[in-house]
């Protein structure tokens, strides 16, 4: 597990949450550093929303401790925790104006009107909300504006940790991309600790300092985006990253060679001592096709049966002569494979691009 760079602000010790017989969150240990942008990624139903609800105090863990700067947080009610959350639904107050929404936390803690307005205006400026929106009803604002209002409202609370529960999920692709980058900017500008939840690893990659991958209530891997991408701990993490080529393999007699059930042998950069059997993962973009595959350590013969454009890249599907599941090959748009469908082709990859995982 990758270590926290800064001093941890939030520590989870053996956190469990059970609903009857169902374990939603199972024995999670995690440290999040002060000022870090930490993202928890997992498919729907992996328990990430349950986990964040425990962290903000809307639910109580069945077991384990949550520590904020070494102080136990379990029994502190949500409204007394120095943390704040941006909801998936945003949960803006529909009967209040943009200004009233942003000022809410200051109003209830008794900050006077002028100071509230000044702070609200500052935040609106920082989040690129037009100042004349101050007295506008939140329902008249667009999706992106509502995101910014929700964020401004949370920042106005001045939380020690800001939690996000998939706030961008409902937005269209372009707006989501813009806001991801803005969020990253705001994280840098404010220096606050952000804990973000999403089902999109791509989103996590763009924004995060570190990522925790969650599956069936447990965290299966924690690391920087680079580590997660290059050294997935298991097949689940590798496949969660996107489409990958997966082969069931086991240790062969030779060092740096693993073999499949039907006797194919593939070279890897090194086989860990404890590895007996598992999966060989090769990313589509690491696989070359045609001439580009010549001379690589690993090659497979097959027939090209499909090709797609993915925008900046081209994807090819190749059915190998040994008949295992179709191989995916991705090439950059400017180095396309020029052959025809149904061509006999060779695909190949370097041994450094063979990723070996044990389950």
């Amino acid at each position: 597990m990758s270590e926290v760079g800064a001093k941890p602000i939030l520590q989870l010790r053996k956190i469990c949450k059970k609903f009857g017989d169902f374990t939603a969150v199972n024995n999670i240990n995690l440290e999040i550093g002060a000022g870090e942008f930490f993202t928890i990624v997992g498919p729907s139903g992996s328990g990430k929303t349950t986990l964040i609800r425990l962290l903000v105090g809307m639910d109580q863990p069945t077991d384990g401790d949550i520590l904020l700067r070494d102080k136990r947080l379990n029994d502190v009610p949500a409204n007394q925790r120095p943390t704040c959350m941006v909801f998936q639904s945003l949960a803006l107050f529909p009967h209040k104006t943009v200004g009233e929404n942003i000022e809410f936390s200051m109003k209830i803690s008794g900050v006077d009107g002028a100071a509230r307005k000044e702070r609200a205006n500052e935040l609106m400026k920082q989040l690129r909300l037009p100042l004349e929106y101050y007295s506008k009803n939140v329902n008249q604002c667009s999706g992106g504006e509502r995101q910014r209002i929700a964020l401004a409202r949370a920042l106005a609370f001045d939380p020690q940790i800001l939690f996000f529960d998939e706030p961008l999920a409902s937005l269209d692709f372009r707006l989501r991309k813009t806001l991801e980058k803005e969020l990253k900017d705001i994280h840098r500008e404010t220096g606050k600790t952000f804990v973000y939840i999403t089902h999109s690893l791509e989103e996590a990659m763009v924004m995060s300092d570190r990522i925790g991958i969650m599956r069936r209530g447990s965290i299966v891997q924690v690391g920087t985006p680079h580590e997660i991408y290059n050294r997935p701990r298991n097949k689940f993490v590798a496949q969660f990253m996107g489409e990958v080529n997966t082969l069931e393999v086991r240790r062969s007699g030779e060092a740096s060679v693993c073999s499949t059930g039907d006797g194919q042998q593939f070279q890897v950069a090194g086989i860990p001592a404890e590895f007996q059997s598992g999966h060989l993962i090769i990313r589509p973009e690491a696989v070359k096709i045609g001439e580009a595959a010549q001379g690589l350590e690993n090659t497979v013969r097959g027939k090209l049966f499909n090709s797609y454009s993915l925008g900046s890249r081209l994807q090819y599907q190749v059915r190998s002569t040994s008949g295992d599941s179709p191989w995916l090959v991705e090439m950059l748009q400017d180095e396309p494979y020029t052959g025809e469908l149904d061509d006999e082709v060779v695909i190949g990859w370097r041994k450094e691009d063979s990723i070996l995982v044990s389950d």
Partner: protein
Amino acid sequence: MSKWWKPGFLTALPVLLFLLVGFAGPLLMVLGYSLMPPKTFSLIQMPTLANFISIVKDSYYISFNWSLTLALTTVVLLLVICYPIAYGMAKLFGKWANLVTVLVAVPLLISENIRLFGWVLFLLKNGILDGSLKFLFDASAPSVLYSVPAIVLGLVYVYLPFMLFPLVIGLSMVPDTVKEAASDLGATRFQVFREIELPLAMPGVMIGCMLVFILALGSLAESKILGGQVVVMIADDIESAFTFAQNWPKGSALSALLILFSGTLVFYLFKKIDLDRILGRR
């Protein structure tokens, strides 16, 4: 094709006619009669304000006052009683909410008067309550029948569904996440209630209050059956003017005043409270 000759207008026509004949017509007749000379039965006479003048001169303000006081008391009591039940039905009871709905709605299938006479039997001296207490504990129940509290009891009992159901709808319109967000931003339970829940549930609260207030203002049976006419409510006066006194113009004038009063109140309140904004439509 001329403008009014459109499918929309044509399909609305039957309802329009029905409303004109069945709703606007009688109201206009009441208004017309209120301007006729006292104790006459024709609408084709010289209009006069004599009825209104005699209402102001006589002591009708007493029964107006009683109606108003009792209606307001009923509204306040029902708000206090129904809010927690409605909250439970909207947020906590889950599938049991349906059972509560049925339990509250079933009595509506029985005539109001019969239900009120049931209360009379219950509260009567040597009735169910008093008799049971005497039999079981050798104690006697305080005599509440034929008193103002008995009237209030009747009003609260009869109009409970009219407050409860709008409140349930109002409270179920408040999203849980919005309340959680407020609490997450540091609001105490009471602040969440005041700043978020109540304003967002206000449409339901308003409709419940309005229904109960207007119905209670024009109520008659409770004061007659449970109150034994210890107080006279305005509906009593209107009834006696039309029946016993055979003074239709006087009864009409009283009705007109009552309608004017409740109408103004309703319009004023709906104007004052911006439902569109609360409902997030504007």
